[in-house]
């Protein structure tokens, strides 16, 4: 009984669908058929429209992919170039600053009868930051042991240190801030002399000042004529503050602020 019912259903569906089709064939211009066709067209047209659009886009995929690859390659090369330009810019800034410093140093007056050679600071060890630096001139450029090493600050020469080790093309500078460094100096407000000594930090200490001497904060400290290394009158720094007097000592001491931070010097002048 069941198969028979199924067959009947199939036959009814077949007859219905065929009847609709037949009506569409026989009455193509009648209003209901045109309405059905219009409706079916309305349903299917978006599919074809979307399909055509999708096909057009698919056709563009190879060229778009090519453009994307080309753009990616360009992007990579531009990134490389951008990084290179950044390095060049940093180098340019560095050279510009160096140029400014060297231009300013052209107006410097060298101590009488002394020749000089300019050197670039090429190494500064963090462990010996206030002790020594290496410069790129040596015996080949006429640099000698214990030669005075100066820098320029606002148009005048400033003491940096002395040559402690000479190589063929490099030298090591013992900075005035090193604990083993000492320079004979005087205060500009009088003729009180003392001995500048490094402390291993950015500040210096001036010892052996006469106990009765009046020390004024901000006084300039310059190299003394009694210095065996430095020409007289070269600026070292200014008085930062006097230390508390020790009643057991017969002299007083002051703290000196160097005119130039030796840690930031990039070029130095070495006297011959």
């Amino acid at each position: 009984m069941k198969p028979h019912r199924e067959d009947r259903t199939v036959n009814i569906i077949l007859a219905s669908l065929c009847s609709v089709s037949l009506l569409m064939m026989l009455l193509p211009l009648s209003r209901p058929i045109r309405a059905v066709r219009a409706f079916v067209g309305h349903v299917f047209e978006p599919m074809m429209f979307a399909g055509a659009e999708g096909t057009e886009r698919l056709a563009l995929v190879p060229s778009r992919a090519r453009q994307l690859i080309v753009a990616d390659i360009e992007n990579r090369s531009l990134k490389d170039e951008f990084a290179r330009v950044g390095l060049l810019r940093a180098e340019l800034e560095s050279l510009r600053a160096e140029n400014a410093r060297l231009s300013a140093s052209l107006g410097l007056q060298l101590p009488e009868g002394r020749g000089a050679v300019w050197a670039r600071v090429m190494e500064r060890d963090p462990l010996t930051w206030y002790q020594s630096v290496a410069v790129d001139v040596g015996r080949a450029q006429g640099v000698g042991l214990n030669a005075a090493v100066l820098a320029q600050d606002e148009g005048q020469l400033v003491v940096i240190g002395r040559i402690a080790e000479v190589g063929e093309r490099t030298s090591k500078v013992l900075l005035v801030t090193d604990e083993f460094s000492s320079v004979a100096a005087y205060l500009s407000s009088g003729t009180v002399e003392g001995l500048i000594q490094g402390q291993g930090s950015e500040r210096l200490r001036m010892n052996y000042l006469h106990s009765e001497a009046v020390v004024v904060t901000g006084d300039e400290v310059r190299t003394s004529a009694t210095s065996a290394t430095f020409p007289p009158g070269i600026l070292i720094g200014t008085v930062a503050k006097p230390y508390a007097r020790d009643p057991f000592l017969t002299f007083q001491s002051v703290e000196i602020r160097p005119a130039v931070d030796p840690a930031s010097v990039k070029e130095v002048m070495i006297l011959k």
Partner: protein
Amino acid sequence: MKYFRMAFVFVLAALAHWWWTTYLSFYGVAPHLLLVMTFVVAARQGPVPAMCCGFAWGLFLDVSSLHLAGSSSMALTIAGYLVGNIRRQVDVSSIAPQCVILVVGTWAYFLFTGLAGLVVLKHFLWPGWAVFLLAPFYNSVLGPVLFWAWDVGVES
């Protein structure tokens, strides 16, 4: 879920047929994807789904064409009915019967639409010798692939 798959297959088949005949036909010869799909649905699901799908796909073809609206829908409906009933007598799971049914069925489809044109329009709608001779074999090559795709994609 099954009905969603069927709906998806319906839309996909209509789009694929339109795309293939529009962009991949070779001298006007392209496989009749919707006819083959009607056979596949009939062989796998029986006559009722095949007739419904065939009728709807036929409407799609009728809307696409200017000639004789209703002929394709009727032809595909009848194709779904016949193949859906034949599957009780013929093993449609192997490739050889599938190919034979597709070749014969395609020729029958062309003859039916042509005769329908002759009856209604007084003009035999002849698809051309190239299509008449080549399309059935094209369909018979495509058929087993679609049978396999149906088994994997819809019935698995």
